[in-house]
């Protein structure tokens, strides 16, 4: 009996999940609208701030909007794919992890595919619209370099935010009902990433760059795109290394996740 290829296996599982969501049409529409609204409200926050002061962390409204848009798109994509890792405590309580563990697919892959939330694309859509408007407002010149950065940044950004979800998920195996604690740095990191990194206090700036690389998801690449230097300790050229930061973040995440699962199976940390 020939084996089904790994890719076909994942494709079937994913396809089925997506069809399932599409079949509950009303709730899908409501939730997508809701997710768009969340994106708009979040942008509103930055807009209100900048409508009253001319500059935020050395950036104009258009420039700050670019940072917001890139970060928001990245976060929405990560949330769509990895957001499920947030609910480890519920899975633990309901005993659903046991059923996942007796199947021949990696636990994380099963968690991701068990509830992929297409509606969260609504939020990414808001990010995309803001991105286009911001590019037009600041009169960005499209060169191969800026185009490359505009495309790669949401992808590496999503990878970094995804790693934060996985890191938080791993920690939740240790901390009972620890979602409040881990939310602080997943969603806190998400929020920090949307702001110009220069407004963050120095220690927080370092934390959200070199430990949890939130400023690398949007702010630093945006500086490169706009040809601006960075603030203290955050030279904009760090933005070129976004993929490396993503690898670093996933390394941390993998350690946390693996030891979390090992803790669950009683194999010790």
């Amino acid at each position: 009996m020939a084996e089904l290829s790994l890719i076909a296996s994942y494709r079937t599982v994913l396809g089925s999940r997506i069809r399932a969501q599409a079949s509950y049409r009303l709730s899908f529409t409501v939730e997508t609208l809701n997710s768009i609204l969340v994106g708009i409200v979040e942008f509103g926050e930055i807009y209100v701030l900048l409508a009253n002061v001319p500059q935020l962390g050395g950036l104009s409204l258009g420039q700050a909007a670019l940072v917001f848009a890139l970060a928001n798109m990245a976060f929405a994509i990560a949330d769509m794919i990895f957001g499920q890792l947030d609910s480890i405590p519920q899975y633990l309580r309901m005993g659903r992890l046991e059923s996942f563990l007796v199947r021949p697919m990696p636990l994380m892959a099963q968690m991701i595919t068990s509830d992929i939330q297409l509606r969260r694309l609504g939020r990414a859509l808001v990010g995309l619209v803001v991105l286009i408007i911001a590019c037009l407002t600041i009169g960005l010149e499209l060169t191969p370099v800026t185009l490359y950065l505009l495309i790669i940044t949401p992808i590496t950004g999503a990878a970094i935010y995804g790693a934060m979800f996985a890191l938080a998920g791993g920690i939740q195996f240790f901390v009972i009902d620890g979602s409040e604690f881990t939310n602080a740095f997943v969603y806190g990191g998400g929020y920090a990433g949307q702001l110009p990194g220069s407004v963050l206090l120095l220690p927080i700036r370092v934390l959200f760059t070199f430990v949890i690389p939130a400023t690398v998801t949007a702010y630093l690449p945006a500086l490169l795109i706009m040809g601006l230097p960075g603030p203290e300790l955050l030279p904009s050229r760090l933005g070129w290394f976004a993929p490396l930061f993503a690898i670093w973040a996933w390394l941390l995440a993998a350690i946390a996740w693996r030891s979390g699962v090992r803790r669950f199976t009683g194999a010790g940390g």
Partner: protein
Amino acid sequence: MTEPIIEFTDLRRTFVVRTKAGRLRRQKRQVHAVDGISVTIRPGEACGYIGANGAGKSTTIKMITGILVPTAGRVRTCGMEPVGNRRRLAREIGVVFGQRSQLWWDLPLRESFRILSAIHRIRADDARPRIDELVEELALGPLLDTPVRQLSLGERMRGEVAAALVHRPRLLVLDEPTIGLDMISKERLRTFLQAERAKHGTTLLLTTHDMGDIERLCDRVLVVDHGRLAYDGTLPGLAERVALQRVLVVDLPEARPPLQVADAENVGMELDGQRQRLAFSPEHTTAARVLAQVTAQIDVVDLTLEEPAIEEIVRTLYHGRASPPAHSER
């Protein structure tokens, strides 16, 4: 002889429980959930694993399936060390957890079976004959397109069992498969499991609180108590050591002196004989025959049938002889 499908040698699992002692200090206490069990199960066997709540049944199942690492001792399932080979092992075994669903609540069964085949990396064409077989034998046809959340418990349980068998496992582990089911659903499930075992030689290991499951399905019984093996043998062998008697409780329209029924013993009366308790061994007679003899004497207003409680079996195993009525009067 063939290689054992499950083998554990002096298996132990200890949990550390921390309890508060004083304002800041916490006391550590070790709980031995499984405390030195050695068992070998050969392919094709059907084993019932019984014991009171907290006796260590679920812990053992978790160690067999690779969800939990033993503290000491050795366990091998399908010739593998389970935790390190968890995902490889998953393709050889099927697991049904009676108290938690492994189906996707918002999907119909048809879709769940499709996903499971994909997870087990079986091509749709290869999976179809097996799925058709399971659907037919578990009478799931009319339910295939209903989302799982709308199924009754009995229907869902049949779905769970089918889901655990889609990939043709050699070993099927069932943790309390009949819990909460009505008699008809229980019977349907048992009949199916018997047929499945006869047809495919699937090894069965089930934990249960229902002696009916053991009688109908198992040719070997393992009794655990406080993490230790208290009995390993056949059901008739167990019946020789403890009373596996059922008690038929009948409510009569009026007070009566003790009823006399062949093959059953009157073990008590309440309300001056308006309620009488008749104990019988299922090896010697049936509930229907006892009831027929009672109704020949007097009308029965209401009746219940009491199964031997696992806790009682364990207790009598230790004290050698069964408490109320002796089991081997003939």
